[in-house]
């Protein structure tokens, strides 16, 4: 019995690994045939967005990983410098394709803070609703998507279908399916349509049913557990050192959530709790996202019940074509489904922004943290680890 156990706990002989020079860099001699270079991406079915990881392998174990980004660079921060503030709204939503509403909220919030603009109460509730719906549709893709990386594609089929139903509700509310441009400086663009709450409730019931089904399909699945428990472990001391935020930090036992810590909009009037785990592996991060999904459904129900049905939705603003924002700078943040998401806006007193800089969680997760986590990982776990960090390449390179 002991012998069999030892076979399964076999560790590769790491003395064959490449040596290091005095700077700590690996000396990888590819002509020795001991190592292989494999490019994971940019054209890879498992990558979320265009990103390449340059892997150096010894056998099937990763010795060195380097992230290469820039395949989606459009120069947003430069483009926004030559657009009016109102023209920046359709531009900035494209910064993160999967979850565009946080960009418009943060830009609107920056403008309001720089110009000391207060927004009406109804608009605050509608903004919160849109942000939570955005989180809901992202999580519907990413929670089963974690199993999709291990070829458990059934959950993805269900999740993408339900995400489409949420996108239909978005279309009804805002007119856009993926990009909404619903939040504008001073408020929002419209009130809830008639019967919206009932249709929302129908979709939420379907999603609750879906959670029961993915529990059976994914989270109780022994294959999924074997492939994810203990894989991609982030130690607690790395959280601050590597700038880990959001669900990845919560899975390591850090109770950090911008909605609780720095309440914005109406989150201080809502009753919710933040789940934490301490395992900090792929399975724990996956469970945290599943818990987020339940929290989000609960929050949407609360918003629907508590929100005022009519009222002012936009406070008066100057003519947007001549709107000179006072000189100053501000940093605003919100909690996206990936973690802290912030805009640093600098105004020089003209109609055009001086600089708008996006702080995306993937900037740290997908580059330094991923490169570190992949060392000594098996090549089959590479994109499982990558998806568990929920990397979003467009927000790294903008």
């Amino acid at each position, binding site marked *: 019995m002991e012998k069999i156990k030892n076979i399964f706990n076999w560790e590769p002989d790491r003395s064959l690994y490449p040596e290091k020079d005095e700077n700590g860099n690996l000396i990888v001699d590819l002509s*020795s*045939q*001991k190592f292989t270079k494999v490019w994971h991406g*940019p*054209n*890879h*079915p498992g990558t979320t*967005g*265009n990103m390449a990881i340059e892997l150096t392998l010894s056998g099937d174990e990763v010795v060195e990983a380097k992230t290469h980004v*820039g*395949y*989606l*660079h*459009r*120069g947003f921060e*430069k*483009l926004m410098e*030559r657009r009016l503030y109102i023209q920046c709204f*359709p*531009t900035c939503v*494209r910064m993160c*394709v*999967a979850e565009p509403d946080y960009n418009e909220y943060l830009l609107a919030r920056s403008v309001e803070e720089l110009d000391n603009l207060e927004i009406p109460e109804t608009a605050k509730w509608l903004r919160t609703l849109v942000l939570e719906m955005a989180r809901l549709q992202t999580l519907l*893709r990413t929670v089963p998507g974690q199993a999709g990386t291990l070829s458990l594609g059934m959950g*993805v*089929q269900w999740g*993408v*279908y339900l*995400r*489409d139903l949420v996108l239909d509700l978005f279309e009804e509310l805002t007119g856009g*399916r*993926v*990009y909404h441009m619903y939040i504008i400086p001073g408020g929002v663009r419209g009130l809830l349509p008639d019967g919206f709450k009932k249709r929302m409730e129908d979709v939420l019931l379907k999603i609750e049913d879906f959670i029961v089904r993915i529990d059976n399909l994914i989270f109780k699945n022994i294959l999924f557990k074997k492939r994810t428990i203990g894989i991609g472990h982030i130690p607690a001391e790395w959280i601050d050192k590597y700038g880990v935020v959001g669900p990845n930090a919560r899975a390591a036992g850090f109770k950090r959530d911008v909605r609780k810590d720095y309440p914005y909009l109406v989150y201080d009037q809502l009753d919710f709790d933040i789940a934490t785990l301490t395992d900090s592996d792929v399975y724990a991060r996956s469970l945290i996202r599943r818990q987020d999904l339940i929290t989000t459904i609960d929050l949407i129900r609360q918003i629907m019940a508590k929100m005022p049905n009519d009222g002012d939705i936009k406070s008066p603003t100057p003519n947007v074509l001549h709107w000179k924002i006072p000189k100053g700078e501000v940093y605003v943040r919100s909690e996206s489904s990936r973690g802290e998401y912030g805009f640093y806006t600098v105004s020089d007193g003209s109609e055009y922004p001086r600089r708008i800089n996006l702080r995306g969680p993937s900037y740290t997760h997908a580059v330094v943290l991923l490169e570190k986590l992949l060392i000594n990982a098996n090549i089959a776990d590479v994109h499982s680890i990558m998806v568990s960090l929920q990397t979003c390449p*467009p927000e790294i390179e903008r």
Partner: protein
Amino acid sequence: MSEDKNKNIQDINTPDDKFIHPENKPRTVISPEGEEIHIEPLRDYFLEKRPEVIQPKSDAVEKFLNWARAESIWVLGFGTGCGSIEIPPLMTPRFDAFRYGVQMRPTPRQSSAIIISGYLAIKTLKRVIRVYEQMPSPKYVLALGSCTINGGMYWDSYNTINRLDHYIPVDVYVAGCMPRPEALLAGFVQLKKKIKEGRAEGANEYAEKFDWYKGNQKKIINDWNMPDYNW
């Protein structure tokens, strides 16, 4: 025979290349015609010949082939821009592109169509050209979104191209930012119609105007470190 075997063993035991499998060693082989060819299996070989125009076969055969091509469009799973977020809804039960014979493939060698889903950064364009050249002919290009038509909202960006048809031939444009899955399905129907009518001759067009396309590509890709043509 026995001599050969000994030689191989000796080769394996030489210290500098003991990890190289004997099949992968540079050596001279004799072809059935008696010609001596020096081969280095570990070197990358590219076909440096220019692409050629493939003349259509007789009318009836070509019609049959075009029908077959149109009914099974295999698309390369390469999301190049924002439009790739609409590919999962397209392939899942709600819109279900499998009904149209469309399915995704992981490698360019197996695909007959590529969806350019939105803007192309210069770094991606380089990979797209490489991928397009690796696809077997006949090949079709579906360009999504206004960014591929005239630059869309990135018309003044320093890192995205303004029009795709200067770099690779485009068969069908699907307008919108971003196009809905229904629009994409309509694009596929249009592409099928074009193939069945024998008008989807993108690969031949690329071969005909090869110098023009290469000139445009080299004008904007500054570090051209890939072969001019490779399959």
